[in-house]
């Protein structure tokens, strides 16, 4: 049995704030196999973005990873020095962020920006070859007239095109893992569909790459991912195959989340929102963090924090109901 590509164990990431220490990732353990597409779903404060940043070791100080391990392709990421980590980023590990306008430097051409990735990791690459590889990548991500657009600036592209450029930069060195943090949230619906389509094609054509798709949108994640992990207030509450999560959710939060999404298919009735507010990451409720909002909560839930346990092969839930 080969080792998983990514193995996170008991990761804890915290931020000091004026109100106290904010625990964004509260002891998360997760594995990802090679070539797998995993969806990481949660609302605000779930910690899903911080988890992605933690894997990339891009957590902004004063936040920091306080404990736990992250193993990637046999290497312990948290033991690497800054330089070694930089060598990995872009080449074996890549990240795509939400807002393309903020990610691209407005004063450099896109050719220069994507080229920068190549030059950094392959310092001896010749300009002609660099250009060729960049143009080829732009073409693959569906930018028309790629060789002409090589010298264009980001503002000359629309939002969707900019996101394609970023995807090109992320994939150009064939990384083994790509973390995409809400890659389509800032885009229009029709453009979102195009980008998701692109990601799907690239994944199929690039069987080596594993993707972690971070999103609040269960629909997006349901279409793209084989497995889904649901996060709430810094903890994983349920991890299972996409179909299982969406058709037969076990954790009350997952159930509630799915019930509160307005649907296009079913008859329109009142939505069933989850009552109350999201747990406060600085001082979360005792016991199960979801218990104040959970219709099934009983005594044990108020005192004991449930642990992620295997319910059946491939299904994990952190809930006393299913213990």
């Amino acid at each position: 049995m080969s080792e998983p590509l990514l193995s996170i164990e008991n990761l804890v990431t915290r931020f000091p704030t004026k109100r106290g220490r904010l625990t964004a990732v509260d002891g998360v353990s997760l594995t990802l196999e090679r070539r797998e597409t995993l969806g990481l779903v949660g609302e605000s404060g779930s910690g899903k973005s911080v988890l992605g940043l933690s894997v990339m070791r891009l957590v902004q100080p004063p936040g920091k990873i306080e404990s736990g391990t992250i193993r990637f392709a046999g290497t312990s990421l948290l033991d690497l020095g800054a330089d070694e980590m930089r060598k990995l980023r872009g080449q074996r590990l890549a990240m795509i962020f939400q807002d393309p306008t903020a990610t691209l430097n407005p004063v450099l051409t896109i050719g220069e920006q994507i080229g920068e990735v190549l030059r950094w990791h392959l310092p001896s690459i010749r300009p002609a070859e660099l250009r060729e590889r960049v143009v080829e990548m732009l073409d693959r991500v569906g930018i028309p007239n790629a060789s002409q657009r090589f010298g264009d600036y980001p503002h000359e592209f629309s939002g969707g095109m900019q996101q394609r450029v970023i995807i090109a930069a992320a994939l150009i060195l064939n990384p083994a893992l790509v973390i995409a943090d809400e890659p389509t949230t800032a885009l229009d619906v029709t453009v979102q569909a195009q980008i998701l389509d692109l990601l799907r094609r690239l994944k199929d054509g690039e069987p080596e790459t594993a993707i972690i798709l971070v999103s609040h949108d269960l629909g997006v994640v349901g279409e793209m991912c084989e497995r889904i992990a649901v996060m709430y207030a810094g903890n994983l509450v349920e991890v299972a195959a996409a179909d299982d999560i969406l058709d037969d959710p076990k954790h009350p939060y997952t159930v509630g989340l799915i019930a509160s999404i307005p649907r296009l298919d079913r008859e329109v009735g009142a939505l069933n929102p989850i009552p109350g507010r999201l747990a406060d990451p600085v001082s979360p409720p005792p016991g199960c963090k979801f218990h104040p909002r959970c219709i099934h909560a009983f005594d044990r839930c108020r005192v004991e924090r449930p642990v992620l346990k295997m319910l059946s092969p491939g299904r994990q839930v952190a809930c006393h109901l299913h213990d």
Partner: protein
Amino acid sequence: MTDASPLVEVNDLTVHFAGRGNVLGRLLGKGPVVHAVNGISFAIGRQEVLGLVGESGSGKTTTGRVLARLVPPTAGRVRLAGEDWLGLSGSALRRRRRDVQMIFQNPFASLDPKWTVERIVAEPLKTHERLGAPELRRRVASLLEGVGLDPRLMTRYPHQFSGGQRQRIGLARAMALNPQLLIADEPVSALDVSIQAQILNLLAELKSSHRLSMLFISHDLAVVRHVSDRVAVMYLGTLVEIAETKALYRSPRHPYTQALLSAIPDPARRKSRKPIGLRGEIPSPLNPPSGCVFHPRCPLAQAVCAQDTPKLRPLADGQWAACHFA
């Protein structure tokens, strides 16, 4: 006896903004023009929720702002309960403003951070009515209860509330004068899904308890479906389709609506969804295409589409679409 005439009638509404060209061009009247809204017409009935859907550049937000009298239109007429709404000005406008209220997308920017919640919700009451302090407080308390907030919170400041709660406060403020029309500009887009549902339910309640008409502006078709009686779809400043909610979602007539609906990733349809891929991206409103604005991306486009702008015409079952081939 209920009044059957529509509350709001919009006719040929057009909004063009001056773009940012060079000074000389603008002086000569030849500067770039943003064609935000291009001659749209629709009506909103009494106690009806009209959903206004579109992507960026569709002009839906601008339409909402014109209706709220925050932006002056370039042309067109709007009647509010039979009266010329756009023609009002000065104190007559001030008085009538109580009938049209708005809630905004950004829960963080829609409340003055330096005002207490009490003061925020009382602002419309203070502007339009003469009430003593105790009476004001009573009204504010009841308004807060009406949106599901504990009235004791009225002494607090906006930054002490979550996004969902702030939207409720904004709603309480909007409902203070019992408006006839509520313009909701992407009211749930900035909220988490589980909170979104709470607010949508709240809006549905308010609609029936206050006999409210609503213009619900959103880019999210699934959300709009839950709230609206009828839905209007906009693309690049043009109204391309309008129909009763059920009909629109069951059998959309305009190719853009069809593509839009098919593009939404809905967990329930994930296996059956057949996306209608649209070519290219949304053009800039500075330079809208000739004829039918959708033709460059439309899978059904023919030569006539580039030349003739299709008018919004009635099809079967009360559906209207602006397409030569619908």
